[in-house]
């Protein structure tokens, strides 16, 4: 089948890509654009390792078609840090040792960013609820939740 021409914005840069209709956004990012920060853990929406932000909302990129990225604004883990340095969440994850194997980390960081974008001052319960779609098998979530709460504090102080 013919490839589709898709124009989209990824991490602030407008991008043109050719996708097969059956290609997921996750495959498009990883195999087509070599943005391998989003990971595949399940390919059915249950682990959150593939999470990206699309038009301001987190989505599981394994359940979005590459074709659906047309005209969308997408942020991946590769777009979180700036030339000025790491995002406060990234820094907080490092300082709190909130990653062990690290495979879930990009998904958690992206989900956490979207949480703090909409709720800069979340409670522990709110963090746990928001991140429930992201599985981590290594950490028991303790240090992840602390890192997000710390980053929220840090970002408030920085503002």
């Amino acid at each position, binding site marked *: 089948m013919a490839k589709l021409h898709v124009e989209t914005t990824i991490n602030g840069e407008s991008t043109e890509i050719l996708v097969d209709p059956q290609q997921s956004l996750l495959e498009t990012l990883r195999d087509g654009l070599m*943005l*391998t920060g989003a990971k595949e853990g399940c390919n*059915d929406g249950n682990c959150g390792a593939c999470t990206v932000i699309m038009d301001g909302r987190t989505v599981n990129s394994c359940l979005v078609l590459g074709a659906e990225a047309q005209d969308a604004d997408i942020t991946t883990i590769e777009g979180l840090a700036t030339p000025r340095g790491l995002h406060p969440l*990234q820094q907080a994850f490092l300082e709190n*040792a909130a990653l*062990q194997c*690290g495979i879930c980390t990009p998904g958690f960081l992206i989900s956490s960013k979207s949480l703090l974008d909409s709720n800069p001052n979340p409670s522990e319960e709110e963090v746990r609820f928001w991140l429930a779609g992201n599985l981590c*098998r290594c950490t*028991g979530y*303790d240090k992840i939740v602390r890192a997000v709460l710390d980053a929220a504090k840090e970002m408030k102080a920085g503002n």
Partner: protein
Amino acid sequence: MATTTTVEQKTTEKVIGTRPIRHDGVDKVTGRAIYGADINLPKMLHVKILRSPHAHARIVSIDTKQALDIPGVKAVITGEDLPEPPSQMQNLGEGAANLRFLSDNAMARTKALYKGHAVAAVAATELYIAEEALSAIKVTWEILPAVLDTESAMAEGAPLVHDDLPQRPMEGDQAPPPNVARYFRFNIGDTQQAFEESDTVVEREFRTQMVHQGYIEPQTATALWKEDESLTIWCSSQGHFNVRDQTSNILQIPVSSIKVIPLEIGGGFGGKIGSTIYPVISLLSKKAGVPVKYSMTRAEVFEGTGPGSGTHMRVKIGAMKTGKITAVDVSLSYEAGAYPGSSVASGCQNMFSPYVIENAFIEGFDVIVNKPKTAAYRAPGTPQAAYAGESIIDEVAESIGMDPIDFRLLNVAEEDDSRVDGTKHRVIGAKETLEAIKNHPHYKSPLNGPNQGRGVAIGYWGNAGMTSSCSLIVNGDGTVNLVEGSVDIGGTRTAIAMHAAEVLGIPAEDIHPVVADTESVGMTSITAGSRTAFASGWAAYEAAQGVLKELIERAATVFETTPDQVVHEDGTFRSVSDNDKKLTFKELAGRLQRVGGPVIGQATITPRGVGTAFGADIVDVEVDPETGKVQVLRVTAAQDVGRAIHPSYVEGQIQGGVAQGIGWALNEEYVFNDEGVMQNPGFLDYRMPTSLDLPMIEAVLVEKRNPGHPYGARGVGEVPIVPVMASVANAVYRATGVRYQALPMSPGNIIAGLTQKDH
């Protein structure tokens, strides 16, 4: 929150015990770190594997012609393509496996022994073409009766999974039951008499289901077989030397022709030690002449990799009114899966190791069933047995009216006490770990409502040593490159680097650790057995000693004196005779070129001073008596860690182990139908805990130093899962009045238990 209890106060280290940011951290929070599936090579093909839809079936014929005719399909292999293996034992680290079984498990030749067993593989230009090719492969099956649990497998007249299973006679020349691959027995004292003299005797049966490690990264690897017959494998495994050796054995090609490049690994927990995929993709690459990549789907991970054993356990225990345990009599049957090699022996050895028990009979059966071949899973074999042992200990303590921690303390093992297998304990912290939970405010705090309960339990794990290698290269700017062979699954690069930094008196940040491929560092065993920070850290320590010795000689040259006149303190080299003559590590590094060239150090070690580990938990739960749902409210997990090299990552291991244990206790299980087909091969219905299911997990680090390690470290990764299921079960008992003797304690099972109690 975490607290550290130091048993002996002797801390002089500057780097050990601090919390530097991990060296690979920035790569891992920016998405730059390259994991197994992140690799893309020119002309790379994609692999799909055809798997048996039946739990037990003879392959009458396989026809791959039509698949090969599909445009884009470049290679197809079946079991016939694997070399016929000699029957030879191979050391796989945690558990030995017969090479023939290993090879058969990689791809079935004549019979498929479980649903998910690989029978053919395809490499094609696109994944969907490979998928299409799978449906074009025609297999004719003759379905055979399957055995799906230990009891039916061991019953007289049970269908045999292997026609030619080598069986050794049991004690007294008795033939073992059908499908039993191995039989273990520990027998000390006189249990019969001891039971007769006991004030109380309790006997119970326990059952647990098959569970998965649940690593988030599916198994994946890429292989390139080149024209010169050399083979390169990129993988995310728990040990690339192991991948190399296993592939060499199965394919019968020299190890020197194989290079294995370790990529970052997304969790393993024992499940990525041995894998069946490397020989398969290597042969596909050989046929296709280009690189091939294979990544499992999540369903394949559940059905086609090694889970942890399901078990059936019978335990009898006797005690005196005073609280002294008199005897235990135990029979453990573990599912090995389709090939021999469950971890039942570890269950037998470890389940009562926290205690002094003079009369014990413990036997274990390694039972073949038509399910995936089991693999190691965090403290392999021990959490199941500890669940049974620590549940019944709790019941005995209650029956004689003793506090469950006091009962355990009364029987606790200390240095020089013997375990049931006859080995003597070295310096251990079982007692201190129990005291840590007894004295913790959590244990004294009240519960806050009806239907709540509190449980405790302790667990033991032996830890491993094995072999590690490391080299160090001093750079001109005073930093040091550290080359090691241990795959880093949870911050071990940093823990290892901290050993070298401590010796050299420089900050951990000045060490640059690299995990090198099989051609660039000495042989290093798997990242498993809680050995990595302990043994590879120790290798770094030894290599740093070599560097230090050489640097002292170089400093002597600069100071125009002899090496015995140079001292090294806190990263500064100083002349004993002339106080003005001193050089910082950095200054000396800058001068090395002029006094003999670069300095390197290397070491390879196979340490003996392995320190065993104990962990004890307090768990509070609340049970909804109407729905059967168990909510874990609070957990405190104390563990003797010897010396926490990097406390954050030690806490992380404890918290992660507790989380996995809670999943195992409450919801995780393989659900099979009567035909042996797994009903829940996905994260939706194989329910691992989410962030919303768990509370914060308080880790209490008990530091009773291991005299067998330069800084007193013990392995920390595995023991934290061991006591969890029992602590949860004991808490659920106190909340409901029901002792649940089967896992998981899922809501439906809780209600069934409550209903039974009311009748």
